[in-house]
């Protein structure tokens, strides 16, 4: 019997959707051989099995073990190139997803991997920073700071030791692209960090990976070891080594100064800036802390040139953004598109509308610190400028859709409670303000709010915005205040007078 070579994703979410059960069920079936790849990010179709055909790959969706005969017989597959969710994307950083075996360095190289590093090797450190300046890449971790500026500061600060740190804390609920990169294309992160190391003169790197991502940490450790064995890490006599370090469940440790404190083994408390980590970071040495997605975007920029990257997107937001759609949509998953689509377009074309039986109520963009948008505001363009103008943030690209069963008072309480739990405690408006905010909302929930409650909450919110040291306290009021703004009647129901 001929064995059908098929592909099945092996990332955490695909396994959570049932990919592992399929692989187990078919492990002793001679008619099929499974190659375990990364996931394409169309998670609503997982577990998805693909097969090579003369016209490219075909796919079967939401596969169950007894679908085996159909797949082996080639019956009922859909050409991958015709899946609308994927077809309408512009995959650059995520080009390998669903195609390669994540931990195979040779496959990474065959598909254009390490070209960015080669280009960087032919440039001076200043030349690398110049390429990034031309690319107009901004950090993808949330603050959207121009990458080249940070690198230039670290480059120009004299020190016998410098560090490069990948922020893999990915704390925003609703985001998972960093996890996908680490599990699905780990060498891309390594390559991006190596390019940064050369640009600033760092010889040591760390990947600070959250505790909740054991598979990602494992994949990174494995690929670092592979890269080391292939003499890739310290190629052309440039000494460089990488290490994976795990956090222990603290949202604020995603903030760069808190992250570095945690990396040194202390309480992850936020520090006042300046000095910025690029001048004085880990152990007081110049350190670049950047998001995983930011590093993973860099190899293509070096390989294709900064101008290529700058040609994508909108005026202030160049390149593509990895949007991660979740919540009550029909088609949750990862979408890489150039900046500039409207939120409505993204939800409609990719999200595919609401999950069966549910009606749209609001969407939150940018994680737990992001604003809520009602249906009337979905025409906002997905780019840093438009969001800044609306007082909102794109953050790390998380998009969570809430349906009409969502209780907005409870949601607002949830956000304040989250901030109260996660506050690092350094400053009063955040540490105490979030607790008071939660208490006010709990009183409203119990029907014991008074006429002043909402004013008090708004006042508190403005104080937190204006006086918190970092964005946790500074942005925490946004989801709460936008909930009150767009759904005032729900809050008023809980007021007695």
């Amino acid at each position, binding site marked *: 019997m001929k064995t059908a070579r098929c592909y099945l994703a092996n990332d*955490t*979410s*695909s*396994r*959570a*959707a049932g990919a592992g059960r399929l692989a187990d069920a078919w492990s002793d079936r001679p008619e099929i051989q499974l190659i375990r790849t990364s996931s394409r*990010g169309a*998670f*609503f179709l*997982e577990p998805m099995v693909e097969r090579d055909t003369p016209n490219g790959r075909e796919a079967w969706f939401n596969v169950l073990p007894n679908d085996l005969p159909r797949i082996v017989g080639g019956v009922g597959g859909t050409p991958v190139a015709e899946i609308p969710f994927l077809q309408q994307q512009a995959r650059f950083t995520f080009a390998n997803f669903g195609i390669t075996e994540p931990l195979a360095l040779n496959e990474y190289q065959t598909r254009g991997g390490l070209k960015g590093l080669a280009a960087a090797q032919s440039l001076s450190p200043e030349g690398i920073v110049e390429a990034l300046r031309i690319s107009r890449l901004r950090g993808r971790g949330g603050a959207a700071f121009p990458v080249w500026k940070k690198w230039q500061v670290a480059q120009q600060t004299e020190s016998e030791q410098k560090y490069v740190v990948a922020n893999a804390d990915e*704390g*925003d*609920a*609703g*985001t*998972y692209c*960093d*996890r996908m990169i680490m599990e699905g294309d780990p060498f891309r992160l390594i390559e991006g960090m190596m390019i940064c190391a050369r640009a600033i003169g760092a010889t040591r790197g760390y990947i600070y990976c959250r*505790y*909740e991502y*054991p598979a990602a940490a494992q994949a990174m450790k494995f690929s670092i070891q592979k890269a080391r064995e292939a003499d890739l890490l310290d190629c052309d006599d440039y000494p460089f080594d990488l290490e994976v*370090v795990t*956090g*222990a*469940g*603290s*949202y604020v440790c995603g903030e760069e100064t808190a992250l570095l404190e*945690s990396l*040194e*083994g*202390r*309480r*992850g408390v936020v520090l006042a800036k300046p000095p910025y980590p690029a001048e004085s970071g880990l*152990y007081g040495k110049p350190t670049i802390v950047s998001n995983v997605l930011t590093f993973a975007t860099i190899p293509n920029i070096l390989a294709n040139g900064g101008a290529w990257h700058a040609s994508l997107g909108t005026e202030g937001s160049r390149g593509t953004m990895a949007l*991660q*759609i*979740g*919540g*009550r949509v029909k088609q*949750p*998953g*990862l979408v890489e598109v150039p900046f500039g689509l409207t939120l409505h377009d993204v939800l409609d074309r990719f999200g595919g509308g609401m*999950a069966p039986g549910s009606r749209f109520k609001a969407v*939150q963009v940018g994680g*737990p610190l992001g604003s809520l948008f009602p249906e009337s505001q979905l025409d906002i363009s997905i780019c840093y400028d438009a969001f800044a103008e609306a007082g909102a943030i794109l953050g790390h690209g998380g998009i*969570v*859709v*809430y*349906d009409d069963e*969502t209780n907005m008072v409870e949601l607002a309480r*949830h956000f304040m409670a989250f901030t*109260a*739990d996660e506050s690092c*405690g350094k400053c009063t408006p955040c*540490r*105490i303000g979030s*607790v*008071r905010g*939660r*208490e006010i909302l709990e009183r409203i929930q119990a029907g014991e709010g008074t006429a002043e409650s909402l004013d008090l909450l708004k006042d508190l919110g403005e104080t937190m915005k204006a006086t918190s040291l970092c964005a946790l306290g500074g942005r925490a009021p946004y989801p709460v205040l936008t909930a009150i703004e767009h759904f005032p009647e729900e809050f008023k129901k809980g007021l007695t007078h």
Partner: protein
Amino acid sequence: MDQTDQMNQSDRTCPGRAYLHGSAGRPSKFCYGKMVFSQPRGDAVTTRHRSKLAEALESCRPVPSAKPNILKTLLAVQSALGHVPTSAIPQIAQVLGVTDAQVAGVLSYYSDLRTQPPGRHLIRVCMGESCTANHGGLVLRAIQEHVRVAVGDRTPGGRFTVEQMSCAGNCAVSPTVMIDEDLCGRVTPSDVQSLLEPYT
């Protein structure tokens, strides 16, 4: 959820520092006293623990030139023992050459470091926004009803500990339940029984 929150609060409240975290007295990392004042069950360092602890600490003993890393050490201890007994703090501090208070401070700060031994299996239900939007709250309730335990607690026989977690990065296949290192997605309340069955 409210009800379980309340059940949960009673044993984790630190009245001495209530002013720091408000009257509701949630578990708080600003509450340094938590570990000193509370009377944890099963906190004694057993003989078996003692040798494992010594081993874990030995592997973390800083080389003379390196700076001690408290968090890394506590994670190593937790991975060896399943938790970090507060009674081990002095020994950890001594090996690292730091103060007891520094170790206690780090231990109380990070929510994934535990001072109590968890059940044989740790069930963590995601309460992130994507999961709650997809009714993760109902899944949590179903799990609690099934194993009859409050959030944060261990079942009497020690089979399960049930906890809430924030986003597991599985938002596109939510709601998410993590049992030990296994992640389950698209969980509904009616899945709960068969989901837990293999974990004895």
